[in-house]
């Protein structure tokens, strides 16, 4: 897209995009560290993640303020309007992803012993998948690649499936030995956090698609977390 007649307008929009790119990079780092911290029970790394989360909150507010000011000053239209609306929404999703990474990191403190191998692999697969989804969706945003966004959107299904199987696995452990319940509950929250991160990456994917095409994704969204139906199993 060519430049605006008013150069300051271009500068404002590119400042928002730069901030968002930084925010995305930081969220990725936070998520990676949170997953490592949990897997290795690295309390120092976990605390680092927790401490840094505030930065993401600050950045989100900054994007919101810049976007609001640009809307007030320039009354953006068409692509520009979508660009700014989408930046606000993506920033909100990234901020939530940051919260969920922080929350995952917090679980590290509650897990005092090494995880059973099967659970560890499941959780680590979920972690890498969530990381990959986040990375891909941020790339899709940077490259303005609607196809890539769509593929992230579709892949969320796998993350959901993995979450459902981990959920089942955790239930089994808890039923086998009530002493596992404490740890398993924390792992369950950890897994749920990763699943929620997946949901936020699909939100971002939807917004990228809208940004590029000016319309929303037409397909039905693949179904999702079915654990609410599974809990009946316990009885």
């Amino acid at each position: 897209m060519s430049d605006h007649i008013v150069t300051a307008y271009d500068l404002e929009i590119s400042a928002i995009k730069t901030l968002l790119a930084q925010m995305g990079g930081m969220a990725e780092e936070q998520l990676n560290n949170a997953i490592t911290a949990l897997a290795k029970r690295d309390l120092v790394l976990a605390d680092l993640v927790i401490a840094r989360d505030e930065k993401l909150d600050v950045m989100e507010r900054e994007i919101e303020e810049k976007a609001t000011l640009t809307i007030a000053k320039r009354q953006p239209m068409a692509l520009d309007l979508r660009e700014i609306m989408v930046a606000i929404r993506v920033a909100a999703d990234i901020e939530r992803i940051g919260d969920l990474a922080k929350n995952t990191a917090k679980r590290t403190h509650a897990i005092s012993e090494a995880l059973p191998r099967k659970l560890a692999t499941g959780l680590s697969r979920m972690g890498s998948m969530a990381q990959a989804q986040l990375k891909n969706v941020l790339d899709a945003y940077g490259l303005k690649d609607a196809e890539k966004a769509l593929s992230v959107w579709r892949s969320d299904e796998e993350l959901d499936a993995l979450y459902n199987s981990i959920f089942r696995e955790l239930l089994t452990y808890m039923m086998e030995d009530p002493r596992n319940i404490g740890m398993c509950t924390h792992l369950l929250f950890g897994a749920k956090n990763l699943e929620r991160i997946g949901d936020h990456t699909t939100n971002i994917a939807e917004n990228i698609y809208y940004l590029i095409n000016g319309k929303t994704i037409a397909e039905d969204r693949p179904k999702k977390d079915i654990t609410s139906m599974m809990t009946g199993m316990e009885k």
Partner: protein
Amino acid sequence: MDQKLANSMPRILAHDVNIYYGEKHAIKNLSVEIPDRAVSAFIGPSGCGKSTFLRSINRMNDTIASCRMTGEVLLDGKSIYAPDVDVVQLRSHVGMVFQKPNPFPKSIFENVAYGPRIHGLAKNKTDLEEMVVNSLKKASLFEEVKDRLNASGTGLSGGQQQRLCIARAIAVNPEVILMDEPCSALDPIATARIEELIDELKQNYCIIIVTHSMQQAARVSQRTAFFHLGTLVEYGETNDIFTSPKDKRTQDYITGRFG
């Protein structure tokens, strides 16, 4: 909305219109259907032909010696350029409001009464008075001027003058109201009043407004036409034009990338 507009018969239909000023080709192969009871906005860079096309809808171009036109403009299915068309009569069906308010140097009452009088629309004095009051009411001006109907129209504020001109235009019961940048000389409050008025008038009229304010076009119209270098680039639902226009030239223009 789209369907409702599409299903009703167009009030104005232009077919393959070309307009020249001497050698200058100002409107090129323009065809368009303009729906009734809706506001259409014409936007585009200066000199792209918005006013030229607008004026062809009530034959105001006839008054320009160098101006020549080919193609057809139909009002309710009937050609307005047919030999038997009475231009004065036509202009009572297709009223016009200009950029600069141009009340006659006469009383407020006479400004509005003029049209009905020359078209012989009023049966008697009471009838005429009623028409004037109604038109002033429709133009949301009556309350402000009811105590001084005999004062001069030129003594009103710019925004009031513009509403007086709108009252004058609607006094003859037109079907179509053409407005060429009606708010460009008005402050934001007066502009808001006119926009509010346009919103009300669209229930009964086919309105076309030329405007340089994208925001105004987005606010008041249901349809927007983008003109560029004498061609109609895109004419569609206003909501679509301002969120996701189809043509790159439209996108560039409304986002402030050329003009």
